[in-house]
């Protein structure tokens, strides 16, 4: 059984190695830049930077569902009839939209470190604890993203007329089903442009995580720049990689948008 699993893992790794857009047999670093500083393997920095690209993309992709879900519930809290719920949601947004992302990141990273350290010391273990930079970055960016996301979703909720809910209740659907079948599909359509902007902002904010030591695009190119003294070249590569990410996500978003609008096209 384990041999079978290993075989599957190996096959997947081999397949990813073949379609790897940077360092695979048809990767751009291998094909066009094999003789330069961006070559893959031990000769250049291609594979390190490709790894950084992967880290940046996975950080943003991992943050997205967390932030979206939290933002959705905060938007619901903001239009709740309960006063305390509205107030606490508004405090949340004011706080995390007003603080600089870098400061949020530092507070989360160092604050969590101190908290966990104290907690562990209280339980009788005295060693140094390091918070995972990926996790801290995901948490901090998720806080910021959810604060902005709740505002986008709130304005989208306001764009949906009251009659849509009432129609759902009149059909005998209960609260959750109305939300799921009637409100959410329209909500996505209204909120998509705003969410697209937030996703772009999130992609750009991931660069900050390099400051607390996560090996993302900026950190890897920074190391390469310091070692090779070719700072301009490597930071240009970093900019280009971020542009590639932005371009790819704009393609994905336009396809999602046309998918969300598929019912409008027929009309």
């Amino acid at each position: 059984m384990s041999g079978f699993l290993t075989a599957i893992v190996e096959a997947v790794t081999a397949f990813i190695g073949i379609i790897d857009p940077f360092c695979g047999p048809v990767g751009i670093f291998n094909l066009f830049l094999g003789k330069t500083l961006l070559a893959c393997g031990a000769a250049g920095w291609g594979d390190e930077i490709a790894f950084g690209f992967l880290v940046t993309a996975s950080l943003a992709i991992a943050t997205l569902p967390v932030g979206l879900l939290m933002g959705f519930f905060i938007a619901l809290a903001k239009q709740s009839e309960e006063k305390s719920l509205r107030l606490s949601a508004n405090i949340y947004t004011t706080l995390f939209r007003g603080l600089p992302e870098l400061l949020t990141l530092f507070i989360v990273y160092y604050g969590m470190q101190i908290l966990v350290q104290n907690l562990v010391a209280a339980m009788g273990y005295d060693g140094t604890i390091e918070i995972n930079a990926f996790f801290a970055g995901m948490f901090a960016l998720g806080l910021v993203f959810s604060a902005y996301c709740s505002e986008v979703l709130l304005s989208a909720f306001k764009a949906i007329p009251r009659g849509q809910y009432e129609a759902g209740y009149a059909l005998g659907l209960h609260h959750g089903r109305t939300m799921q079948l009637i409100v959410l599909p329209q909500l996505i359509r209204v909120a998509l442009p705003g969410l697209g902007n937030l996703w772009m902002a999130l992609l750009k904010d991931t660069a900050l995580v390099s400051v607390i030591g996560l090996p993302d695009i900026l950190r890897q190119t920074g190391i390469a720049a310091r070692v090779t003294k070719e700072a301009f070249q490597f930071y240009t590569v970093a900019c280009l990689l971020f542009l590639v990410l932005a371009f790819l996500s704009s393609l994905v978003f336009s396809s999602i948008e046309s998918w969300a609008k598929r019912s409008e096209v027929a009309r």
Partner: protein
Amino acid sequence: MSYVTTLIPPQAPPPAPPKPFTAGRFFGNIFMGVWLALAVGIFLMITGGWDPEKFAKYGPNYRSGLGVTLLLVSLSVVLGGLISLPLAFARMSKNPVLSWFSYGYVYFFRGTPLLTQLFLIYYGLGSFSAELKAWGLWWFFRDAWNCALLTFTLNTAAYQAEILRGAIESVARGQHEGAAALGLPKKVAFFKVILPQALIVALRPYGNEIILMIKGSAIVAIVTVLDLMGETRLAFSRTFDPQAYLWAALMYLLMVELLRNLWAWLETRLTRHLKR
């Protein structure tokens, strides 16, 4: 025949129905409790860890850091606004070279992180120090503050160009036609008819952009500029006192909230003729 002999005596209104304890109220109370605990914790941390010596030592640093942040943001927003004018017009012009150049500029500066742009200018141009010295520009690029100012100016110019373009294009076509029908020259029509209406549309995005710049300016601390964030990092690295970050957070929040309220007031004031 019947008639009323006694009136029904006045009665107390029925008691209000009991407020149901819903899930919303439950979670609302929990979250308010969390915020309250956090506020009390922060208050205790400040009063418990209050050290007049540290305050006397780092207080002036914080003030100078705040000054650097404000100066950096205001200078770059104003300079960026100046650069954004030709950029926005280039973007709207019929000349394909101009409009493509402007599109590329805006795409680059809006598509890449500010931190990467800062590194590109500060460290990247630093690798051309020989050429820059030959051109007599090295004194400018040697200083982190100048590089930060340049980066922020170029960055906000791209965003402001998009804001301006969007606002100008949002003015209805009839306004152009009306001005032409009155026989106004193109220039007068632009400055007296189109631009005032466009600037009202652009007011809110401009406010957002300034807030984004204030928040974004924290990253200059990474390239050794001693702005508010830089002073904070310095104070933290010397004292290991988490209060350092707390004070910075309060100052940033105060700045952003003040600006937000100022902008809300400005908007209601400037759009009062549009109220129906």
